Structure formats: C-alpha cells, structure tokens
C-alpha cells in the first residue's frame, strides 16, 4: 500500500441544469406562484391539495380541474430548526423547516420559516409568505415564510443646539485648558465639581471657581457590555471618580485597564487629549487611568 492516499476530486453536474416539463397541474401552481398567488387543486372527494398533484394520493383518482386560491397565510404543524444552514438552503442564517397548512388547504406545504429563534415556531404558529423580488415560476419564488407581524421598531431622533452660558461655560473653559474647575459652598464648605453657582444641598452661594487636580479615586463603578461610541472597547467601565479635594464624585470612563481589574478605592488620573486637539468639551478627557498608587480606604 502506498503511504500517502491517491485521491482525486470528482464532480457530477448537468451544466445549465436538467430541463423538466411540469405538466398542466404543477405548471398551473408554478404559474400562479409567479403571479404571487397560491393555489391548490380540488380532488374528486373535495379535498384541496397544496401543492397540487395530478392524482389524489388517497385514491389514485385524477384531481378535478378546479383550482382554489389558498393562503397566503398558513399554520405551522411541525418544524425543525436548522442551526447550521447549508449553501443550498433558502436562507443563509439559522431558520426553521416547517410543514405549513395554508388557509383553505387540506395538506401541508414544506418551506422555510425565517423566525430568528427556534422557540418562535411551535405548532400553531401563523406564518405568511415573503416573496422574491422577481418571481420566475419556482417553489423558491416564495423566499421564505415569516411569522405574523406583532411588533415594529420606531426610530427616534431629534437634533438640538445647546449653548453653554453660566457655570457650565466656566467649567468647560477650564477643561479647554486641561483643568477641572470646582466650587466651594460658602455656607457648608462642600466642594463641587463640575463648577456650579449654588449648593444643591444647602442652597448657599458658590463663589469663584477653584482648580482641582486631575487625580482622584474610584468610589463605585459599572461594567458595560453594550458598545458606546465614547468608550474604548466592550466591555468598558464607567465609574464615579472623586477628585482629590472634591466632596462630590464625577462620572467618567475608566481606561488603560481590563474591566475586571477595576475596583473601588483605585487611584486614577485623567488622561487628556494632546494640547493641540483640545476644545472646550468633555471630549478633552479621554478617560481616567490607574495611577498605580496604593488603593485608598473609602469612608
């Protein structure tokens, strides 16, 4: 025996396909399909066969010449879920094969159902055909069936123009210089950042802004698994950062560290964009990154 196998590729193919005549019964069904209509044929006993056959399988008698419009909707009687679609299948994503009893038919049609989820096609599910753009008279003129419409997606989008006037403008001008500006309440002595003009706790006035360092500590955080255009990657961490010298934390992204290593008490420092890219916007702060200092005890 030779050690390496002698193997050749062999293809059986009828180039251009095999031409088949349809006969009058199947031809009628396919012609109606091309016109996006579904028809069955009535048997001598009065049953409606869909798809139509030339002879009644129950009796062997020729069917009558009476064609009956059925569907377009139908009811699933059994289904199987294709986890791994193949090239020859009607859909390139997981789908169900189903036996579908079209309204008005006494037999079931075999076709694909695009249901998204294997649990979405139990027996009794109502399905409707979704047609190909240009029907040609083939069973695949029905691209697939789909469950009834039970929900829609409503897009919402509105645009606004926001102007930073008072305290926010003061704060953002600080950010443009690479500095966080806070303010101290004249009455209760608490330091707030971002800068504001009154104390939300005691109502006292806040005077001139004070500069705060770009360092602080994480007081709490959340790991986010949905993408966000501002975040470096998924999952990402958003945290409350208590800047040194402030009494109220600020919400910020945490970066330069794997999400699972972030912890309460971790020391962080703001990572600013390069000076020439800075604008009066929070986009100046890329995120906060660990400083490497020992963790802080949180009160």
């Amino acid at each position, binding site marked *: 025996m030779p050690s390496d*196998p*002698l193997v050749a590729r*062999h*293809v*059986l193919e009828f180039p251009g396909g*095999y031409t*088949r005549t*349809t006969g009058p019964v*199947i031809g009628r069904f*396919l012609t109606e399909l091309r016109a996006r209509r579904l028809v069955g044929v009535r048997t001598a006993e009065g049953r409606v*066969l*869909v*798809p139509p*056959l030339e002879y009644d*399988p129950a009796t062997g008698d020729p069917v009558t010449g009476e064609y009956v419009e059925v569907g377009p909707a139908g009811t699933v*009687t*059994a*289904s*199987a*879920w*294709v*986890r*791994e679609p*193949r*090239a*020859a*299948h*009607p859909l390139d994503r997981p789908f169900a*094969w*189903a*036996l*579908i*009893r079209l309204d008005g038919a006494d*037999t*079931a*049609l*075999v*076709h*694909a159902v695009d249901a998204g989820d*294997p649990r979405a096609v139990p027996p009794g599910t109502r399905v409707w055909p979704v047609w190909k753009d240009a029907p040609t008279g*083939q*069973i*695949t003129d029905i691209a697939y069936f789909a469950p009834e419409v039970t929900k829609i997606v409503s897009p919402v989008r509105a645009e606004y123009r926001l102007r930073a006037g008072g305290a926010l403008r003061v704060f953002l001008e600080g950010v443009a210089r690479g500095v966080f500006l806070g303010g101290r309440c004249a009455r209760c002595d608490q330091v707030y950042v971002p800068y504001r003009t009154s104390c939300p706790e005691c109502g006292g006035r806040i005077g001139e802004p004070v500069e705060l360092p770009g360092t602080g500590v994480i007081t709490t955080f959340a790991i986010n698994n949905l993408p966000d255009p501002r975040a470096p990657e998924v999952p990402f961490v958003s945290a409350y950062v208590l800047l040194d010298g402030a009494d109220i934390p600020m919400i910020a992204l945490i970066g330069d560290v794997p999400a699972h290593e972030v912890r309460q008490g971790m020391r962080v420092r703001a990572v600013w964009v390069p000076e020439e890219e800075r604008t009066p916007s929070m986009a100046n702060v890329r995120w906060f990154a660990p400083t490497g200092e020992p963790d802080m005890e949180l009160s």
Partner: protein
Amino acid sequence: MRDVAVVAFAQTRHTREDAGLSETELILPVIDEVKERTGLTRFGFTCSGSCDYLAGAPFSFVSALDAIGAWPPISESHVEMDAAWALYEAWVRLQHGDVDTALVYGFGKSSLGDLREIMTLQLDPYYLAPLGLDQVSYAALQAAAVDADRELLDGIVRRSRADGRANPYAPDLPEPDVADGPVAPLRAADLPPITDGAAAVVLAAGDAARELCERPAYVRGIAHRVEPHYLGMRDLGRSVSAADAARAAGVGKGPVEVAELHAQFPHEEVVLREALGLGGDTVVNPSGGPLAANPVMATGLIRVGEAARRVLDGSARRAVAHAANGPCLQHNLVTVLEA
C-alpha cells in the same frame, strides 16, 4: 406460493471512511463468502440494489457485475433502491418456478460525497429539491412531528451503539453524548454514521433450500407499501405504509422474537415499533441496526440478513426484517422469516 428461504448471508466489515476499494472490490468478498457457504457458483437469478448518485457514476451497478462473473450471460436485474427490494424482486422471480436459486446483493459507499445533499436528489424536483431540503433536515421534521420522549430516544441510541460495538461488522461508536445536531430536534448522536459496505444474500426455493442449508430461514411473508412522496401529504407522526406492509406480510400472526428495523434515526424506531405492532418481548436491532452501521443501499438487505441469521443459527424461530426507502419512511418493506 413456493417456499423460498434465505440460505446464506454475508456482509463486509463496514468502514466509516473510504478504504479506497472499487465497488467491485468491495462486493467480491461477500459474493465469495455466500458462494462458499452454499457451494453454488451460478445462480438462477441475480439482482442487486445500489444508487448511482452515491458514487456519482452512471450505471455503476453494471461495472459492479465484474464481481459476479457474468459470462456465459446470466439472468440479472437491478433496483435503484435499497437491495432489500432486490431481494423482493428475486423472491417474485423464484415464484415463477423455473429457477431455484437467486443471488441478491447491495452496496454503497456513502463516504465519497455529501450524503445529506445526495439524498436531496431523490426528492421531487418541483416542490422539494429546489429548497435544498437535505436528509437530516427532513428527518428532523419527522422527529418534530413524532415528538417522542427524549429519554426514550436516548435509550435507543445508547442501545444501538452498544449492540454495534458487540457486532464485529459494525464500526465502534462511542457512548452517545448530548451534543446538538445540525438540525433540531435531532441531536448529533441521533444521526447514523456515514458507512461504506456491502452485503449478499442467497435465496433458494423448494428442495434447493433444504439441500443448501441445514436450517433455512423461510420467507413466510413479504410485502411492501408506499405512501405519497410529498411530506405534507401524510401524517409524519406515524407510518401507515409500514403498518399496511406488516399486516400484508402477517407480522402479527405469531410472536416476533427478533426484529431488525431500517431505522436510521431513533424516532424512526419509535414509529416502526408502533406500525409493526412490536411489543416489549421483541428484541429490536440486536445487530445495532442502522444507527451503528448504515451502508446505504445495503442497510435494508442487511436487516433481512441479520434477521435470517438468527433463524439460520437457531437462536430464533421467528424474526421480522424491515427495510425503508424514500424520505421519512415513505416506502416500507416487511419480511417475516421462520425456521
């Protein structure tokens, strides 16, 4: 009716991969084996079952005749079906009374192509084949319609694989696991193994049966029935045609000690047990059945051979063999064999 009996049976040690043998080379050992066992070198009639699409070669059964020695010309026929139907044709031929022996063989190498899609080629070309409905997909549709208890199905797969490991002709398959199959509700372990193999049976009528064999396995009933091809025209949860064939073959006229069923998926065994009216006393597929070795086109004939073997070796007095053809048990052949 003439008494016709199975007097010899042989099968290959089936492989899960292409061993590189031509079909002639695959068949030759089993033909030699039944010739040796019966002492016959010529037969009154020869009939085979195979499918050209398995090898992708037209008239592959003609070149397979090289294994038989067909000169001077022999009386020969072929069915493009499982070879169990070749056995049926041979049984009918022996009823004519002018010949007394028949050689029946079947073979298939399903490892060469993609069996799931090759089986699509047997489907009606107008309504089913254009959908790309493959063998595992339509079997899964039937499994959903049968909706059998999962534990029952698991038990069938476990038993079939264990029996297959004890069968020297079947490849060894591991204990089944719960891995998902490509099409739910079927699990991966519910699928029969891709198998290459062949089998041969010798039938003999009248006195010839007793002369060729100590304990012939007499065909006391044989019948086949077919249902509509289109899956939506029948109740896939049961098999009316298998029940009709069993009734016509007289399965219920006596106790069935052993039944070899052509059930390629565990839910098919559930359907067939009910259709054939088999009770708990019947040992089903002691060979492991098609879930242990499935040399397509020989699998059904092997059911007849395995059932007959139990009668030939004296371990059973009455056995039943079932063979299927077409999608979702469309066409069923039932044979009753008795000592």
